[in-house]
């Protein structure tokens, strides 16, 4: 491995082949998109709490066209909701989360010099970057960005006559998504190959840290499900542009009867959710993996039930492929199918429950150290419980009839998928920052960041369940058109208040992140006393990760507080003592 080839600025920071630099590129792009997506949510939250009122900030961001006199335009409201969902789900919690931690951790934790193909890895980032540019460009087109919801159900997304955002904005959305899928597939294949083929000596699959398992399974999920979204989008492009009728049939719009017959919008929903549901777990599993590491390290205890944790990851991943219909109970799908999907969906509660119990058992009789990363991991356990439980309501087809597409759903998925995944991401950043940049992040700012985020996030999303139980549909520009929703304005004001507080406090995180890169205190080689391989590499970033030979692995990843050892952690490289059981 050549450690000393000349690096120019371009090859070191921009077109880098080094997995650690690519990870940072994903992270910082993801953070940028996170800020954009969050700002959007604050803009439309203002409208929801104070419908029809004028805000200078709206006009300032959106201009005279989309916020005349500071009042949000209803089409722009739908566009903001759509783009907020698209950005957070795909750009932040898929690419930002997996892209960062898979790239950063896989070679370091399995003991490899780099990814199987550094070049494909670089391509993966640059496709993602191109997708980002296209998506951001769509914010500035005359008819506005895509507005048909992040699920882009046709015919709404297929017909510019139905909503202006389905013009050029939707085209750009589809192009961006295609580029995104290419990026995701290139990355995913690379992760799978690397984990299967490049593990160092002694690193058997059963010695992999759980975050490796999670990222491995996520990559498989992505490779199997993203192509389906790609084909769904492709058929949509055909319908939009070339006059085919895959999804369109018997439509009269803007006074004109369209020629399309024989298509079915329900087909799109099936194809979309065949990706869409695994996608939820593509977002969640890396967070589950990260949290497993962080909780184990900071409880100074082995993760409880390693095997059960791996099996439950696999079970969740497998089930995620046969539950997509629970998004479609009331589409007119055969009720028998509804029964089948109710059955498979509720089964997911079993492996999820096992995970929660195992986390609690890991904390039990631990020696818990409250780092900011640990706090976010705890936050994850809490949101995973809360959001998981409301899933039992939504997965039950009979109950879904009346809460489908209401704020109950919004509350549910923001807690179980949004908050959990973003907490996992924060936990990961705080935990591996010393490895990424050789510096420590400020602990006190981390504490403040956690507490304000934790409180305001529940303040935003918990009350939404009540809105949903009051019957309030999601994606409503305003709830003033119905007398039955009048009493809900108070709740909306509370939600917006917490959204703004929670939004502002993220500035602390961003400040802490960039300040610590440059001026943070120097990190030691293994600041958390962790057993895994990444902490055996030098603090300085080098190509090839280890200056000498790659270390050999001699035990599993969770020997914390093992009796018979002087320290409360035993690195994976340390040979078993005579007569010592592995675990």
């Amino acid at each position: 491995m050549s450690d000393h080839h000349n690096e120019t600025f371009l090859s070191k920071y921009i077109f880098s082949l080094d997995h650690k630099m690519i990870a940072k590129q994903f992270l910082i792009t993801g953070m940028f998109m996170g800020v954009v997506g969050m700002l959007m949510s604050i803009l439309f939250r203002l409208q929801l709490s104070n419908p029809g009122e004028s805000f200078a900030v709206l006009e300032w961001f959106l201009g005279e066209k989309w916020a005349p006199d500071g009042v949000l335009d209803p089409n722009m409201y739908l566009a903001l909701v759509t783009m907020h969902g698209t950005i957070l789900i795909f750009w932040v919690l898929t690419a930002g989360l997996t892209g960062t931690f898979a790239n950063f951790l896989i070679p370091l934790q399995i003991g490899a010099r780099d990814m199987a193909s550094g070049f494909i890895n670089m391509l993966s980032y640059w496709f993602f970057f191109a997708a980002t540019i296209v998506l951001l460009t769509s914010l500035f087109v005359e008819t506005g960005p895509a507005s048909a919801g992040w699920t882009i159900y046709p015919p709404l997304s297929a017909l510019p006559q139905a909503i202006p955002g389905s013009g050029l904005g939707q085209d750009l959305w589809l192009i961006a998504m295609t580029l995104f899928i290419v990026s995701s597939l290139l990355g995913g294949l690379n992760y799978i190959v690397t984990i299967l083929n490049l593990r160092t000596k002694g690193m058997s699959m059963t010695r992999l840290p759980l975050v490796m398992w999670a990222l491995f399974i996520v990559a498989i999920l992505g490779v199997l499900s993203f192509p389906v979204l790609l084909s769904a989008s492709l058929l949509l492009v055909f319908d939009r542009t070339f006059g085919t009728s895959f999804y369109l049939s018997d439509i009269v719009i803007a006074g004109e009867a369209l020629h399309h017959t024989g298509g079915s919008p329900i087909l799109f929903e099936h194809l979309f959710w065949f990706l869409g549901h695994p996608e939820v777990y593509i977002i969640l599993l890396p967070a589950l993996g990260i949290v497993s590491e962080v909780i184990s390290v900071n409880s100074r205890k082995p993760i409880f039930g390693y095997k059960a944790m791996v099996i439950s990851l696999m079970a969740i991943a497998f089930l995620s492929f046969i539950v997509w219909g629970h998004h479609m109970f009331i589409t007119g799908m055969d009720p028998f199918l509804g029964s089948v999907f109710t059955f498979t969906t509720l089964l997911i509660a079993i492996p999820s429950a096992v995970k929660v119990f195992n986390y609690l058992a890991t904390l039990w009789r631990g020696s818990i150290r409250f780092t900011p990363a640990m706090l976010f991991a705890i936050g994850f356990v809490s949101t995973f419980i809360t959001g998981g439980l409301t899933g039992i309501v939504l997965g039950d087809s009979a109950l879904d009839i009346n809460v489908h597409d209401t704020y109950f759903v919004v509350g549910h998925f923001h807690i179980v998928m949004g908050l959990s995944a973003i907490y996992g991401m924060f936990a990961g950043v705080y935990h591996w920052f010393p490895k990424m940049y050789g510096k420590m992040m400020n602990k006190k700012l981390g504490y403040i960041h956690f507490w304000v985020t934790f409180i305001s996030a529940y303040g935003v999303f918990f009350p939404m369940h009540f809105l949903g139980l009051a019957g309030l549909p999601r994606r409503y520009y305003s709830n003033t058109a119905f007398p039955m929703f009048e009493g809900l304005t108070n709740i909306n004001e509370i939600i917006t208040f917490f959204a703004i507080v929670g939004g502002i406090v993220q500035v602390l995180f961003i400040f802490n992140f960039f300040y610590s890169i440059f001026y943070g205190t120097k990190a030691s080689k293994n600041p958390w006393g962790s057993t895994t391989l990444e902490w055996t590499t030098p603090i300085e970033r080098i190509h090839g990760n280890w200056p000498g030979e790659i270390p050999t692995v001699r035990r599993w990843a969770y020997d914390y507080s093992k009796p018979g050892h002087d320290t409360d952690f035993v690195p994976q490289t340390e040979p078993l003592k005579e007569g010592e059981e592995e675990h």
Partner: protein
Amino acid sequence: MTNVFIVVISFLLVVTLVQLVRVGQLLGDIRKKDFNVVTETDNKRQSFLMLIVGLAFLASCVWQYFAWNPLLLPSASSEHGVIIDELMRFTMILIISVFFLLHLFLFYFLHKYKKSSDKHKAYYYTHNNKLEYIWTIVPAIILTGVILYGLNVWDRITNADTSEASVIEVYGKQFGWNARYPGEDQKLGSHDYKLVGGANALGIDIDDVNSLDDKVTRELHLVVGKPVLMKLRSQDIIHSAFMPHFRVQMNCVPGMTTQFVFTPTKTTKEMKMLEGDDFEYVLLCNKICGVAHYNMQMKVVVETQEEYDAWLLKQGTLSEKLLTQK
């Protein structure tokens, strides 16, 4: 001017933050301690906070429940809605108990097992198969119950008897609703989307004899205690007919007809007595459909057979309407 202020204040805040962090770092240097190492004091403080904030969160959930309960939907006004409500109550009791139980364990463990001194060592405990079997099998048994109960309710709703039901069509388009009543022959006439236009807003085929006495209305009137087979269609894009008081929701999909069977049990008048004079049943759109999605509604009235007959008599038939047009 305000903008300048905002910029100046933000800048000063960042500067303050930088200075605070630097003071912390310098203090650490002086005391020869790494400022970012988590100390026992930190553990005590954070675990205490965790307990306080955690319990406060649980308390706030209880508060929200009592404060906002009056805002929630009244109990169901339809036959199947009552069994949905029962299933909901059962599920809610289950998940709320688990929610409190698991969170109490979480906050208690975090407080109890914080690292409080150097002597505090964790207990090396990797797995316990028996325990893990128990907490796999117990949730599995509980969920079997939930699934069987849920499927039973679902089956009763979706396989409801339609032989006695009167057919009514609900038709959605950007951004409004129509209802169509079959008239005396009790049969809805056929339709073709290419016929939509002018007075024939629903594209009904007037060459079909069944169509002639069909009645198209702007309100949905239902007879109390009488089952309804609601047929749903859409003119343009997917809409969703949502009637929260009846626990009824079904998508309207262009190119196909969907349906939902239900029996209203309380008249609008009865509901006004229970819920106040402002009360109205409503059918609203619950699938994103464009700029006025948030205001796509139709008034729903549940009344006695006599009131219903009187109302329906006043509605003109399709043949009358279309012939006067011609």
